[in-house]
Protein backbone atom coordinates (compact mmCIF):
# COMPACT_ATOMS: atom_id res chain seq x y z
CA UNK A 1 0.00 0.00 0.00
CA UNK A 2 1.26 3.47 -0.80
CA UNK A 3 1.95 5.98 1.92
CA UNK A 4 -1.06 7.87 3.10
CA UNK A 5 -1.83 10.63 5.51
CA UNK A 6 -4.52 9.94 8.06
CA UNK A 7 -6.03 12.69 10.17
CA UNK A 8 -6.76 11.30 13.60
CA UNK A 9 -8.90 14.12 14.85
CA UNK A 10 -10.31 16.58 15.70
CA UNK A 11 -13.20 14.23 16.33
CA UNK A 12 -11.69 10.85 17.03
CA UNK A 13 -12.37 8.56 19.96
CA UNK A 14 -8.71 8.24 20.85
CA UNK A 15 -7.93 11.90 21.47
CA UNK A 16 -9.21 12.79 24.89
CA UNK A 17 -9.65 16.42 24.24
CA UNK A 18 -9.50 18.05 20.91
CA UNK A 19 -6.42 17.78 18.79
CA UNK A 20 -5.41 16.34 15.52
CA UNK A 21 -2.69 13.81 15.00
CA UNK A 22 -1.71 13.67 11.36
CA UNK A 23 -0.11 10.33 10.72
CA UNK A 24 1.85 9.30 7.65
CA UNK A 25 1.34 5.59 7.28
CA UNK A 26 2.94 2.88 5.27
CA UNK A 27 0.30 0.18 5.45
CA UNK A 28 -0.42 0.18 9.16
CA UNK A 29 3.05 1.31 10.21
CA UNK A 30 3.55 4.90 11.22
CA UNK A 31 6.35 6.72 9.44
CA UNK A 32 5.76 10.18 10.76
CA UNK A 33 3.33 11.74 13.19
CA UNK A 34 2.56 15.42 13.35
CA UNK A 35 0.35 16.83 16.10
CA UNK A 36 -1.81 19.81 15.21
CA UNK A 37 -2.94 21.85 18.16
CA UNK A 38 -5.03 24.92 18.71
CA UNK A 39 -8.53 23.49 18.55
CA UNK A 40 -9.11 24.52 22.15
CA UNK A 41 -7.08 27.70 22.05
CA UNK A 42 -8.93 30.54 23.71
CA UNK A 43 -6.18 32.99 24.56
CA UNK A 44 -6.13 32.21 28.25
CA UNK A 45 -2.93 34.12 28.95
CA UNK A 46 -4.15 37.18 27.08
CA UNK A 47 -7.57 37.33 28.63
CA UNK A 48 -6.04 37.00 32.08
CA UNK A 49 -4.46 40.40 31.52
CA UNK A 50 -8.03 41.73 31.56
CA UNK A 51 -8.93 40.19 34.94
CA UNK A 52 -8.04 41.16 38.48
CA UNK A 53 -5.95 38.77 40.53
CA UNK A 54 -8.78 37.11 42.50
CA UNK A 55 -10.88 36.79 39.36
CA UNK A 56 -8.29 34.54 37.80
CA UNK A 57 -8.59 31.78 40.41
CA UNK A 58 -11.78 30.17 39.02
CA UNK A 59 -10.44 30.52 35.50
CA UNK A 60 -7.18 28.82 36.39
CA UNK A 61 -9.37 25.88 37.40
CA UNK A 62 -10.44 25.61 33.79
CA UNK A 63 -6.85 25.33 32.57
CA UNK A 64 -6.79 21.63 33.04
CA UNK A 65 -10.14 20.17 33.92
CA UNK A 66 -8.59 16.85 34.88
CA UNK A 67 -6.71 18.39 37.77
CA UNK A 68 -8.24 21.78 38.42
CA UNK A 69 -7.07 21.99 41.99
CA UNK A 70 -3.40 21.76 41.19
CA UNK A 71 -3.63 24.58 38.66
CA UNK A 72 -5.52 26.96 40.89
CA UNK A 73 -3.09 26.06 43.63
CA UNK A 74 -0.17 26.81 41.34
CA UNK A 75 -1.71 30.15 40.50
CA UNK A 76 -2.25 31.04 44.13
CA UNK A 77 1.25 29.92 45.01
CA UNK A 78 2.72 32.14 42.33
CA UNK A 79 0.68 35.05 43.54
CA UNK A 80 1.76 34.49 47.12
CA UNK A 81 5.31 34.74 45.95
CA UNK A 82 4.45 37.92 44.03
CA UNK A 83 2.63 39.55 46.96
CA UNK A 84 5.12 38.08 49.38
CA UNK A 85 2.57 36.72 51.85
CA UNK A 86 3.00 33.87 54.26
CA UNK A 87 0.33 31.17 54.13
CA UNK A 88 -0.93 29.82 57.47
CA UNK A 89 0.34 26.34 58.19
CA UNK A 90 -3.08 24.76 58.45
CA UNK A 91 -3.94 26.10 55.02
CA UNK A 92 -0.78 24.52 53.61
CA UNK A 93 -1.71 21.17 55.07
CA UNK A 94 -5.23 21.42 53.69
CA UNK A 95 -3.73 22.26 50.34
CA UNK A 96 -1.53 19.19 50.44
CA UNK A 97 -4.54 17.03 51.25
CA UNK A 98 -6.67 18.40 48.43
CA UNK A 99 -3.74 18.33 46.01
CA UNK A 100 -3.07 14.69 46.68
CA UNK A 101 -6.77 13.90 46.43
CA UNK A 102 -6.72 15.70 43.12
CA UNK A 103 -3.70 13.69 42.04
CA UNK A 104 -5.56 10.48 42.73
CA UNK A 105 -8.59 11.75 40.85
CA UNK A 106 -6.45 12.81 37.94
CA UNK A 107 -4.64 9.49 37.75
CA UNK A 108 -7.98 7.70 37.93
CA UNK A 109 -9.20 9.84 35.09
CA UNK A 110 -6.11 8.83 33.15
CA UNK A 111 -6.69 5.16 33.87
CA UNK A 112 -10.27 5.53 32.72
CA UNK A 113 -9.17 7.00 29.42
CA UNK A 114 -6.44 4.40 29.08
CA UNK A 115 -8.94 1.61 29.52
CA UNK A 116 -11.06 2.99 26.70
CA UNK A 117 -7.98 3.39 24.53
CA UNK A 118 -7.11 -0.25 24.91
CA UNK A 119 -10.68 -1.31 24.27
CA UNK A 120 -11.55 -2.39 27.80
CA UNK A 121 -14.65 -0.53 28.90
CA UNK A 122 -14.84 -2.39 32.19
CA UNK A 123 -11.72 -0.63 33.47
CA UNK A 124 -13.28 2.70 32.60
CA UNK A 125 -16.50 2.04 34.45
CA UNK A 126 -14.82 0.62 37.52
CA UNK A 127 -12.56 3.63 37.65
CA UNK A 128 -15.44 6.09 37.29
CA UNK A 129 -17.04 4.37 40.24
CA UNK A 130 -14.07 4.99 42.51
CA UNK A 131 -13.46 8.43 41.07
CA UNK A 132 -16.92 9.45 42.23
CA UNK A 133 -15.91 8.59 45.77
CA UNK A 134 -13.00 11.02 45.68
CA UNK A 135 -15.07 13.64 43.93
CA UNK A 136 -17.51 13.35 46.81
CA UNK A 137 -14.69 13.97 49.25
CA UNK A 138 -13.53 17.02 47.32
CA UNK A 139 -17.12 18.12 47.03
CA UNK A 140 -17.54 17.97 50.78
CA UNK A 141 -14.60 20.38 51.09
CA UNK A 142 -15.21 22.69 48.17
CA UNK A 143 -18.78 22.23 47.06
CA UNK A 144 -17.99 21.47 43.43
CA UNK A 145 -17.30 18.31 41.54
CA UNK A 146 -14.66 19.37 39.07
CA UNK A 147 -13.82 23.04 39.05
CA UNK A 148 -13.35 23.84 42.67
CA UNK A 149 -12.36 27.50 43.03
CA UNK A 150 -10.98 26.54 46.42
CA UNK A 151 -7.44 27.86 47.00
CA UNK A 152 -7.16 31.55 47.67
CA UNK A 153 -4.20 33.88 47.49
CA UNK A 154 -2.99 33.55 51.05
CA UNK A 155 -4.73 30.38 52.10
CA UNK A 156 -7.79 28.40 51.21
CA UNK A 157 -11.42 29.41 51.04
CA UNK A 158 -12.78 27.43 53.96
CA UNK A 159 -11.73 24.94 56.56
CA UNK A 160 -12.21 21.20 56.28
CA UNK A 161 -15.76 20.04 57.02
CA UNK A 162 -16.44 18.14 60.23
CA UNK A 163 -15.79 14.41 60.08
CA UNK A 164 -13.65 14.86 57.00
CA UNK A 165 -10.76 12.94 58.52
CA UNK A 166 -12.93 9.92 59.22
CA UNK A 167 -14.44 9.92 55.72
CA UNK A 168 -11.07 10.38 54.13
CA UNK A 169 -9.41 7.55 56.02
CA UNK A 170 -12.32 5.29 55.22
CA UNK A 171 -12.11 6.17 51.54
CA UNK A 172 -8.35 5.53 51.51
CA UNK A 173 -8.78 2.11 53.11
CA UNK A 174 -11.42 1.17 50.60
CA UNK A 175 -9.52 2.55 47.66
CA UNK A 176 -6.25 0.77 48.36
CA UNK A 177 -8.08 -2.50 47.99
CA UNK A 178 -9.54 -1.27 44.73
CA UNK A 179 -6.11 -0.49 43.28
CA UNK A 180 -5.32 -4.18 43.72
CA UNK A 181 -8.48 -4.92 41.77
CA UNK A 182 -7.41 -2.72 38.89
CA UNK A 183 -4.04 -4.38 38.86
CA UNK A 184 -5.67 -7.77 38.71
CA UNK A 185 -7.79 -6.62 35.81
CA UNK A 186 -4.91 -5.00 33.93
CA UNK A 187 -1.59 -6.56 34.89
CA UNK A 188 -3.16 -9.94 35.23
CA UNK A 189 -4.28 -9.94 31.65
CA UNK A 190 -1.82 -11.19 29.08
CA UNK A 191 -3.43 -9.07 26.40
CA UNK A 192 -2.95 -5.93 28.44
CA UNK A 193 0.72 -6.75 28.81
CA UNK A 194 1.34 -7.34 25.14
CA UNK A 195 -0.57 -4.19 24.27
CA UNK A 196 1.60 -2.05 26.54
CA UNK A 197 5.05 -3.56 26.92
CA UNK A 198 7.80 -2.29 24.66
CA UNK A 199 5.74 0.48 23.12
CA UNK A 200 6.57 4.17 22.97
CA UNK A 201 10.01 3.68 24.49
CA UNK A 202 11.75 6.89 25.54
CA UNK A 203 15.27 6.40 26.85
CA UNK A 204 16.22 8.44 29.97
CA UNK A 205 18.51 10.90 28.17
CA UNK A 206 15.97 11.38 25.39
CA UNK A 207 13.20 11.86 27.91
CA UNK A 208 14.99 14.70 29.63
CA UNK A 209 15.95 16.26 26.34
CA UNK A 210 12.43 16.04 24.96
CA UNK A 211 11.20 17.81 28.04
CA UNK A 212 9.11 15.03 29.53
CA UNK A 213 8.31 15.64 33.18
CA UNK A 214 6.39 14.12 36.00
CA UNK A 215 5.19 10.53 35.86
CA UNK A 216 6.29 10.11 32.27
CA UNK A 217 9.83 11.13 33.11
CA UNK A 218 9.88 8.87 36.14
CA UNK A 219 8.67 6.02 33.97
CA UNK A 220 11.71 6.66 31.81
CA UNK A 221 13.91 5.75 34.74
CA UNK A 222 14.73 9.29 35.86
CA UNK A 223 14.33 9.90 39.56
CA UNK A 224 12.91 13.42 39.64
CA UNK A 225 10.06 14.76 41.70
CA UNK A 226 9.64 18.46 42.24
CA UNK A 227 7.76 17.76 45.45
CA UNK A 228 11.00 16.32 46.82
CA UNK A 229 13.71 18.15 44.89
CA UNK A 230 12.33 21.68 44.86
CA UNK A 231 9.86 21.49 47.73
CA UNK A 232 6.91 23.84 47.85
CA UNK A 233 4.06 24.12 50.31
CA UNK A 234 4.85 21.76 53.20
CA UNK A 235 6.01 18.80 51.20
CA UNK A 236 9.35 18.62 53.01
CA UNK A 237 7.45 17.59 56.14
CA UNK A 238 6.39 14.32 54.56
CA UNK A 239 8.23 11.13 53.96
CA UNK A 240 7.24 9.62 50.64
CA UNK A 241 8.65 7.47 47.86
CA UNK A 242 9.29 8.69 44.37
CA UNK A 243 8.04 5.96 42.08
CA UNK A 244 10.23 5.15 39.12
CA UNK A 245 10.27 2.36 36.62
CA UNK A 246 13.08 1.14 34.41
CA UNK A 247 11.17 -0.11 31.39
CA UNK A 248 10.67 3.34 29.78
CA UNK A 249 7.61 2.13 27.88
CA UNK A 250 3.85 2.45 28.06
CA UNK A 251 3.64 -0.23 30.70
CA UNK A 252 6.13 1.67 32.85
CA UNK A 253 4.01 4.79 32.62
CA UNK A 254 1.01 2.77 33.72
CA UNK A 255 2.95 1.26 36.63
CA UNK A 256 4.30 4.59 37.84
CA UNK A 257 0.84 6.11 37.99
CA UNK A 258 -0.61 3.15 39.83
CA UNK A 259 2.19 3.37 42.39
CA UNK A 260 1.76 7.11 42.70
CA UNK A 261 -1.84 6.68 43.72
CA UNK A 262 -0.69 4.55 46.64
CA UNK A 263 1.94 7.12 47.56
CA UNK A 264 -0.67 9.86 47.47
CA UNK A 265 -2.84 7.91 49.88
CA UNK A 266 0.18 7.66 52.11
CA UNK A 267 0.83 11.41 52.02
CA UNK A 268 -2.80 12.17 52.81
CA UNK A 269 -2.65 9.90 55.84
CA UNK A 270 0.47 11.65 57.07
CA UNK A 271 -1.05 15.06 56.47
CA UNK A 272 -4.21 14.14 58.36
CA UNK A 273 -2.07 13.07 61.31
CA UNK A 274 0.11 16.15 61.37
CA UNK A 275 -2.39 18.85 60.53
CA UNK A 276 -2.19 21.73 63.05
CA UNK A 277 -4.95 24.06 64.17
CA UNK A 278 -5.13 27.68 63.22
CA UNK A 279 -6.47 30.09 60.63
CA UNK A 280 -6.74 29.07 57.00
CA UNK A 281 -6.48 32.40 55.23
CA UNK A 282 -4.69 35.73 55.45
CA UNK A 283 -5.47 39.07 53.87
CA UNK A 284 -3.47 40.08 50.84
CA UNK A 285 -3.05 43.53 49.26
CA UNK A 286 -4.98 44.37 46.16
CA UNK A 287 -2.21 45.69 43.95
CA UNK A 288 0.85 43.71 43.04
CA UNK A 289 4.40 45.04 43.26
CA UNK A 290 6.42 45.66 40.11
CA UNK A 291 8.34 42.46 39.75
CA UNK A 292 8.25 39.09 38.08
CA UNK A 293 8.12 35.75 39.83
CA UNK A 294 8.10 32.15 38.78
CA UNK A 295 6.79 29.12 40.63
CA UNK A 296 6.53 25.49 39.75
CA UNK A 297 4.75 22.48 41.13
CA UNK A 298 4.49 18.79 40.51
CA UNK A 299 1.19 18.65 38.71
CA UNK A 300 -0.36 15.18 38.34
CA UNK A 301 0.70 15.37 34.70
CA UNK A 302 4.17 16.77 35.16
CA UNK A 303 5.91 20.03 35.84
CA UNK A 304 3.48 22.91 35.98
CA UNK A 305 4.95 26.38 36.01
CA UNK A 306 3.68 29.93 36.04
CA UNK A 307 5.58 33.09 35.31
CA UNK A 308 3.94 36.32 36.34
CA UNK A 309 4.91 39.91 35.73
CA UNK A 310 3.23 42.43 38.02
CA UNK A 311 3.07 46.11 37.15
CA UNK A 312 1.68 47.75 40.26
CA UNK A 313 -1.98 47.48 39.27
CA UNK A 314 -4.57 44.92 40.31
CA UNK A 315 -4.23 43.02 37.03
CA UNK A 316 -1.25 40.95 35.94
CA UNK A 317 0.90 42.49 33.24
CA UNK A 318 1.79 39.10 31.82
CA UNK A 319 0.89 35.61 32.95
CA UNK A 320 2.62 32.74 31.25
CA UNK A 321 1.92 29.08 31.85
CA UNK A 322 4.06 26.04 31.31
CA UNK A 323 1.86 23.09 30.60
CA UNK A 324 3.49 19.66 30.82
CA UNK A 325 1.23 18.09 28.22
CA UNK A 326 2.14 20.74 25.68
CA UNK A 327 5.66 19.39 25.70
CA UNK A 328 4.58 15.75 25.65
CA UNK A 329 2.67 16.41 22.45
CA UNK A 330 5.87 17.51 20.77
CA UNK A 331 7.34 14.11 21.62
CA UNK A 332 4.58 12.29 19.75
CA UNK A 333 6.67 11.63 16.68
CA UNK A 334 9.54 10.28 18.74
CA UNK A 335 7.24 7.88 20.56
CA UNK A 336 5.10 6.73 17.67
CA UNK A 337 7.54 6.30 14.83
CA UNK A 338 7.72 2.70 13.66
CA UNK A 339 4.71 1.53 15.62
CA UNK A 340 1.41 0.34 14.25
CA UNK A 341 -1.59 2.61 14.06
CA UNK A 342 -3.23 0.43 16.69
CA UNK A 343 -0.56 1.57 19.13
CA UNK A 344 -1.44 5.23 18.79
CA UNK A 345 -4.19 5.13 21.42
CA UNK A 346 -2.09 3.01 23.70
CA UNK A 347 1.00 5.24 23.54
CA UNK A 348 -0.71 8.62 23.42
CA UNK A 349 -3.16 7.49 26.06
CA UNK A 350 -0.34 6.55 28.38
CA UNK A 351 1.10 10.06 28.51
CA UNK A 352 -2.14 11.46 29.92
CA UNK A 353 -3.42 14.06 27.51
CA UNK A 354 -5.28 17.10 28.70
CA UNK A 355 -5.86 19.60 25.98
CA UNK A 356 -7.27 22.39 28.10
CA UNK A 357 -3.89 23.29 29.47
CA UNK A 358 -2.09 22.48 26.24
CA UNK A 359 -3.91 24.91 24.04
CA UNK A 360 -4.69 27.44 26.77
Amino acid at each position, binding site marked *: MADMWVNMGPQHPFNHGLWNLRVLMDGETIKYAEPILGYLHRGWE*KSMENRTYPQIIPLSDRLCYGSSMSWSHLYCMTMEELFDVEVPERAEYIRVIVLELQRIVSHLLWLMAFGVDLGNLTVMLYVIREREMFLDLLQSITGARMTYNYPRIGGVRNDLPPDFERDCIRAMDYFQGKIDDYEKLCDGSKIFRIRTEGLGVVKPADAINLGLTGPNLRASSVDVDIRRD*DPYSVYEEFDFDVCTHDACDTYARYRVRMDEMRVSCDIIRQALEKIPDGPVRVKVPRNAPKKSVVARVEDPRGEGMM*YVVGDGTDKPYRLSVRSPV*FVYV*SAANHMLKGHKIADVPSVMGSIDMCLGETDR
Partner: protein
Amino acid sequence: MAEITACSGNLTGLEIADALSKRFAEGIKINSASPKRIFSQVDKEIFLELCKFLKNDLLFDHASLVSGVDRIDRIQAVFHITSYINNCCLIEIVVDLDHEEPEIDSITPLWEGANYHERETYDMMGIVFKGHPDMRRIFLPEDTRFYPQRKDFKLKEVP
Protein backbone atom coordinates in the same frame (compact mmCIF):
# COMPACT_ATOMS: atom_id res chain seq x y z
CA MET B 1 17.06 1.63 40.38
CA ALA B 2 16.66 4.72 38.26
CA GLU B 3 19.39 5.51 35.78
CA ILE B 4 19.43 9.25 36.44
CA THR B 5 18.76 10.69 39.89
CA ALA B 6 18.01 14.32 40.58
CA CYS B 7 20.17 16.39 42.92
CA SER B 8 23.11 14.04 42.53
CA GLY B 9 25.40 16.86 41.35
CA ASN B 10 27.31 19.13 43.65
CA LEU B 11 26.69 22.67 42.38
CA THR B 12 24.15 24.95 44.01
CA GLY B 13 22.60 28.04 42.51
CA LEU B 14 25.09 30.37 44.11
CA GLU B 15 28.06 28.49 42.66
CA ILE B 16 26.42 28.37 39.27
CA ALA B 17 25.83 32.11 39.38
CA ASP B 18 29.50 32.60 40.27
CA ALA B 19 30.63 30.41 37.42
CA LEU B 20 28.39 32.27 34.99
CA SER B 21 29.53 35.73 35.98
CA LYS B 22 33.15 34.53 35.84
CA ARG B 23 32.72 33.11 32.33
CA PHE B 24 30.59 35.93 30.89
CA ALA B 25 31.76 38.98 32.70
CA GLU B 26 30.28 41.52 30.29
CA GLY B 27 27.02 40.27 28.94
CA ILE B 28 25.31 38.79 31.99
CA LYS B 29 23.72 40.50 34.94
CA ILE B 30 22.72 38.27 37.83
CA ASN B 31 19.78 39.93 39.52
CA SER B 32 19.53 37.51 42.38
CA ALA B 33 20.67 34.03 43.20
CA SER B 34 19.61 31.46 45.76
CA PRO B 35 20.37 27.72 45.99
CA LYS B 36 17.35 26.85 43.85
CA ARG B 37 16.78 29.95 41.74
CA ILE B 38 18.93 32.26 39.60
CA PHE B 39 17.48 35.34 37.93
CA SER B 40 19.61 36.85 35.24
CA GLN B 41 19.53 39.33 32.39
CA VAL B 42 21.60 38.42 29.35
CA ASP B 43 22.70 40.22 26.20
CA LYS B 44 21.38 38.91 22.92
CA GLU B 45 24.86 38.38 21.47
CA ILE B 46 26.16 35.94 24.05
CA PHE B 47 22.85 34.16 24.57
CA LEU B 48 23.52 31.07 22.49
CA GLU B 49 27.03 30.69 23.87
CA LEU B 50 25.64 30.96 27.38
CA CYS B 51 23.10 28.27 26.66
CA LYS B 52 25.78 25.95 25.32
CA PHE B 53 27.83 26.59 28.44
CA LEU B 54 24.80 25.89 30.62
CA LYS B 55 24.08 22.66 28.86
CA ASN B 56 27.55 21.23 28.49
CA ASP B 57 29.42 22.44 31.56
CA LEU B 58 26.79 23.21 34.16
CA LEU B 59 24.54 20.27 33.26
CA PHE B 60 21.35 22.20 32.70
CA ASP B 61 19.34 19.52 30.99
CA HIS B 62 15.72 20.62 30.87
CA ALA B 63 14.17 23.64 29.19
CA SER B 64 11.15 24.36 31.34
CA LEU B 65 9.54 27.35 29.74
CA VAL B 66 10.11 29.78 26.92
CA SER B 67 7.91 32.83 26.86
CA GLY B 68 7.95 36.47 26.01
CA VAL B 69 6.88 39.75 27.60
CA ASP B 70 5.90 42.85 25.64
CA ARG B 71 7.36 45.86 27.47
CA ILE B 72 5.97 48.37 24.93
CA ASP B 73 9.41 49.77 24.12
CA ARG B 74 11.08 46.39 23.83
CA ILE B 75 10.19 42.73 23.81
CA GLN B 76 11.72 40.37 26.31
CA ALA B 77 12.26 36.72 25.64
CA VAL B 78 12.22 34.80 28.90
CA PHE B 79 13.80 31.37 29.25
CA HIS B 80 13.52 29.12 32.26
CA ILE B 81 16.00 26.28 32.27
CA THR B 82 16.39 23.60 34.92
CA SER B 83 19.27 21.42 35.95
CA TYR B 84 17.93 18.23 37.44
CA ILE B 85 21.39 17.03 38.36
CA ASN B 86 22.59 20.18 40.08
CA ASN B 87 20.18 20.67 42.94
CA CYS B 88 17.16 21.04 40.66
CA CYS B 89 18.21 24.63 40.12
CA LEU B 90 16.10 26.88 37.92
CA ILE B 91 17.68 29.72 35.98
CA GLU B 92 15.68 32.54 34.47
CA ILE B 93 17.27 34.21 31.48
CA VAL B 94 15.73 37.43 30.24
CA VAL B 95 16.87 38.74 26.89
CA ASP B 96 15.87 42.17 25.63
CA LEU B 97 14.91 42.29 21.96
CA ASP B 98 14.05 44.94 19.45
CA HIS B 99 10.31 45.67 19.38
CA GLU B 100 10.00 45.92 15.62
CA GLU B 101 11.91 42.83 14.62
CA PRO B 102 12.35 40.56 17.60
CA GLU B 103 14.83 37.84 16.70
CA ILE B 104 16.82 35.48 18.85
CA ASP B 105 18.76 32.26 18.51
CA SER B 106 16.71 29.14 19.01
CA ILE B 107 17.55 26.76 21.82
CA THR B 108 15.70 23.85 20.25
CA PRO B 109 18.93 22.32 18.90
CA LEU B 110 20.15 22.15 22.49
CA TRP B 111 16.95 21.21 24.29
CA GLU B 112 14.32 19.49 22.19
CA GLY B 113 11.71 20.27 24.84
CA ALA B 114 11.78 23.96 23.92
CA ASN B 115 10.47 23.20 20.45
CA TYR B 116 6.78 23.84 20.95
CA HIS B 117 7.34 26.59 23.48
CA GLU B 118 9.30 28.53 20.89
CA ARG B 119 6.61 27.96 18.30
CA GLU B 120 4.05 29.16 20.77
CA THR B 121 6.06 32.25 21.62
CA TYR B 122 6.34 32.98 17.91
CA ASP B 123 2.63 32.51 17.51
CA MET B 124 1.66 34.63 20.47
CA MET B 125 4.39 37.24 20.62
CA GLY B 126 5.99 37.29 17.21
CA ILE B 127 9.51 36.49 18.37
CA VAL B 128 11.38 34.71 15.57
CA PHE B 129 13.73 32.01 16.74
CA LYS B 130 16.63 31.61 14.33
CA GLY B 131 17.65 28.02 13.77
CA HIS B 132 14.36 26.54 14.85
CA PRO B 133 13.51 23.56 12.61
CA ASP B 134 9.84 24.38 12.08
CA MET B 135 8.98 28.01 12.74
CA ARG B 136 5.24 28.07 12.08
CA ARG B 137 2.22 29.22 13.98
CA ILE B 138 0.99 26.50 16.32
CA PHE B 139 -2.39 27.55 17.73
CA LEU B 140 -3.74 30.13 15.34
CA PRO B 141 -4.21 29.53 11.62
CA GLU B 142 -1.30 30.31 9.30
CA ASP B 143 -2.99 33.36 7.85
CA THR B 144 -3.54 35.20 11.14
CA ARG B 145 -2.26 38.77 10.89
CA PHE B 146 -1.84 39.67 14.55
CA TYR B 147 0.22 38.52 17.51
CA PRO B 148 -2.29 38.30 20.35
CA GLN B 149 0.07 38.60 23.30
CA ARG B 150 1.42 41.96 22.22
CA LYS B 151 0.08 44.94 24.09
CA ASP B 152 -1.11 46.70 20.95
CA PHE B 153 -3.61 43.88 20.37
CA LYS B 154 -6.60 44.79 22.51
CA LEU B 155 -9.31 42.37 23.57
CA LYS B 156 -12.81 43.60 23.01
CA GLU B 157 -14.15 45.69 25.85
CA VAL B 158 -17.02 44.25 27.81
CA PRO B 159 -18.73 46.49 30.36
